[in-house]
């Protein structure tokens, strides 16, 4: 498509109408509220103008997952020295087993348990008689087999809440018996409208079952920070940590990618919370602000523009030494940034991108694409709330297509019409998009690549986008005897 026509408000509004016309009336009405374009409000600020965090319409093929996915898959699952029990039938734990790529160091099955699938594997008798007694015994068995575990989490699947099991009582009892934290997380999949409530429930479990229940011995410094809501996908949290250490901060807790329980327990001792994925962990940051008076700062470590802005923003919370360090670090990495841009920008400049991802990436990665000269023509969130969309408008150009909780039907039509040069979304969207001849990168798992955070990650991000967009295979779609 020609660049003149991109982010054409009228065309995009017409496209939305065209798509909505395909729905039955009631569903069209519901979906209309979730589709829009970026517009300026009365004060001239760009807004997305869509409703969000509302129940998905039945039968439309939402991309969303459930509360369990948010609590186990996202927040608790990466905590490496705890055994996480998928409590209920076999499936949930099986499908989420080792799929998030939360990297960690440690010995699996001995002192680390991230890439294991531990489940109570509910049978019919558990549904009938309840699962509490067996859960109690199961925890004893896990203690025998994994004595170096540092705690246990119990993540409820759908039936637990429906049959009235009391996993809190079991947790209290076992916690006392073992002298360890045993943490119930009420993340039944039918709760809420998406993964998002699962994040919230998981945050509340940290508040109620971890904080103020003993902190490992600790000597603080004025530069202690927590790195919050970086799940270390493909190792993301490590280049982030490196940058923070380089500017002179001490990261005392990394949540929850590569975290140990101790890093969560001592978090209230930090001077500042730095939050990357606002959506999944703002709750606990607000709680720490209220209860422990720890301020929090949002930052964005995707792409050099936002990395530099974030380093300055973080440094501004500290003294001049830190601020000077931040400038030094930004300068230190500038040659790397220049090299990456010199290599990839000419290959990517002007290419259009559509995104559809989860918590922060629909906005956070937008400027990383900008850095490469690429243009976002559409973006949306699986499970955002209004405050996410409020944080999104200024990252985008007027007229950009916005789709909240998009259905696969809508997404396919949007891709077909906008024909972007790249789509960034999830595994469920990858292959259908590529069939259409449109390059694709998974933006949840980094398509088995990464890290993408920090300067080290930006080089990989640029390389990967180039590989996708400029792969030679896209010129071979049509058989030569058919092309014409």
């Amino acid at each position, binding site marked *: 498509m020609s660049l003149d026509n991109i982010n054409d408000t009228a065309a995009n509004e017409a496209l939305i109408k065209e798509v909505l016309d395909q729905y039955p009336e009631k569903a069209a009405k519901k979906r209309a509220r979730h589709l829009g374009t970026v517009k300026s409000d009365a004060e001239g600020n760009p807004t997305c103008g869509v409703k969000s965090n509302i129940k998905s319409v039945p039968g439309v093929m939402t991309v969303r997952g459930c509360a369990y996915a948010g609590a186990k898959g996202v927040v608790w699952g990466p905590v490496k020295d705890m055994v996480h029990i998928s409590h209920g039938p076999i499936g949930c734990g099986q499908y989420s087993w080792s799929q998030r790529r939360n990297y960690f160091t440690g010995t699996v099955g*001995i002192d680390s348990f991230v890439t294991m699938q531990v489940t109570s594997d509910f049978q019919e008798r558990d549904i009938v008689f309840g699962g509490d007694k067996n859960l109690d015994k199961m925890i004893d068995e896990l203690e025998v087999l994994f004595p170096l575990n540092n705690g246990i989490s119990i993540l409820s699947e759908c039936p637990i809440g429906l049959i009235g099991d009391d996993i809190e009582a079991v947790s209290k009892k076992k916690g006392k018996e073992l002298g360890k934290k045993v943490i119930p997380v009420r993340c039944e999949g039918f709760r809420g409208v998406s993964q998002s409530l699962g994040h919230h429930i998981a945050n509340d479990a940290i508040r109620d079952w971890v904080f103020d229940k003993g902190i490992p011995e600790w000597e603080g410094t004025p530069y202690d920070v927590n790195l919050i809501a970086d799940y270390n996908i493909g190792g993301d949290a490590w280049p982030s940590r490196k940058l923070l250490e380089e500017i002179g901060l001490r990261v005392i807790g990394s949540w929850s990618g590569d975290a140990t329980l101790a890093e969560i327990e001592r978090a209230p001792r930090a001077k500042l919370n730095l939050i990357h994925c606002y959506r999944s962990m703002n709750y606990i940051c607000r709680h720490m602000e209220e209860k422990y008076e720890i301020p929090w700062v949002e930052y964005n470590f995707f792409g050099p523009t936002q990395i530099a802005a974030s380093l300055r923003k973080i440094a501004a919370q500290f003294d001049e030494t830190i601020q000077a360090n931040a400038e030094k670090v930004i300068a230190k990495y500038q040659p790397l940034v220049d090299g990456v841009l010199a290599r990839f920008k000419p290959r990517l400049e002007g290419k259009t991108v559509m995104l559809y991802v989860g918590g922060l990436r629909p906005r956070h990665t937008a400027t990383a694409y900008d850095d490469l000269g690429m243009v976002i023509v559409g973006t949306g969130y699986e499970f955002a709330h209004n405050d996410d969309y409020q944080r999104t408008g200024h990252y985008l150009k007027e007229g950009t297509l916005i789709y909240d909780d998009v259905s696969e039907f809508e997404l396919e039509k949007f891709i077909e019409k906008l024909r972007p040069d790249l789509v960034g979304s999830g595994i469920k969207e990858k292959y259908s998009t590529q069939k259409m001849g449109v390059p694709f990168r998974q933006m949840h798992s980094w398509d088995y690549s990464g890290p993408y955070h920090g300067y080290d990650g930006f080089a990989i991000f640029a390389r990967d986008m180039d590989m996708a967009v400029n792969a030679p295979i896209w010129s071979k779609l049509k058989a030569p005897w058919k092309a014409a």
Partner: protein
Amino acid sequence: MPQSADNIKDHISLFSEPEYTKLLAEKKAQFECRPTDDAVAAQLEYSKSWEYREKNFAREHAVINPHKACQPLGAVFAAAGFEETLPYVHGSQGCAAYFRSHLARHFKESSACVSDSMTEDAAVFGGLNNIVEGLQNALKLYKPKMIAVSTTCMAEVIGDDLSAFIGTAKEKESVPADFPVPFAHTPSFVGSHVVGYDNMIKGVLNYFWDRAQGEVTRGESNGKINIIPGFDGYATANNRELKRYLDTMGVDYTVISDVSDVFDTPTDGVYRMYDGGTKLDDVRDAINAKATIALQEYCSAKTVEYIESKGQPTASFNYPLGISATDALLMKISELSGKPIPESIEKERGRLVDAIADSQAWLHGKKVALFGDPDFVYAMAVFLMELGCEPTHCLCTNAGKEWEAKMKELLASNPFGADAKVWVGKDLWHLRSLLFTEPTDLIIGSSYGKYLEKDTGIPLVRLTFPIFDRHHHHRFPIFGYQGALRVLVEILDRIFEVTDASSDISYDLTR
């Protein structure tokens, strides 16, 4: 600085750079509060012991690294094999997202499936409104010829009645009264994905043979043979291989649930949500077939029983992989159809026997640990013994006593099975103990086996669902003589790789 624009390092090598190894070591030392390295090393050693194995096998409640999925996954897979059919999951939406991801990661294909997104209110009041609205939306948007409904455990626990709900939805005109909406109750707390597969196939047949226009009775034979493949990660290529045999023999057939095209669509500029699949008219007419052959007994028990109740003869097999399993299937097809097995197929068989004869010295007495679905494990054990290997540990998480007895009988009947053990209802953490205490030369299973390979150093051959970390295995068959040849080569390659890596002295050019 570890990173540069000219030599971009990603996760594979970046974290071995000194800046990162130092960072990770300091994080561990200062912030993680880990057990001492000595304690970790001691526990690691202990976890390899017989004593640990005994504790591991004493557990009755904890399930650790199981090798099975839940019923609706099998139902969604089965539903996808019918012409322009949209799988529909009644219950929580997260389940549908998981099924779609799981299948997509294995097949490297999109997997279409809608859910009706039941939440708290549906938990209290039931999911009737969801299904009424969901069916209407699904039909309007995705224009399927059939919607096949399965359930998640949420809908099962609250007791939603699919038959009544779908009836009500039709009364409310959310879909036309004659629109096919077969269904299967698929509680995930009963059985596994293989049972879900069975339930959905039965549900589809039951719709066309009993529910659509009242009970249908068998009429004049249509001369065909029905084939039910069962849940199979290699179905794309295996079904094609099977059809090649049938075409070569000149046998008329209906593959009931044929996913070979829907999970293997071309990239040519068009996304096909539906492709191929069993024609609905053929399903209707399948009641008049000469007979039904189930390729996987443990994926088809209820379906076979149902078909027999209609007066149609059936025959069940355990995954036609290897020489004798393929022989038996072809002879049965020949017997039922009256068509002889042509010489061209006999030659393929001869070539397989030839290949095994050429390589037998490298295979004889090799010990193998084997895990997977019940039919696969059975078939692979048979084939391994044909190769002269010993299926030392045969483990199946999702089988029952009947399978266990059948396996034991099989192994007892063959000298290569004399020392073999059957582990039913066990998981891959059990298998880890088995491999440390009674090691084998090879592991055969799925991608989940890679953790066993890493822990024990025993090489893994990926030959069953799911295969996430290797690409395109499912595009080549493992059924039949050609498939067995391919399995043979994969096993041999691993044996030769290990042999080459084992000794500088015996680093022979020719083996």
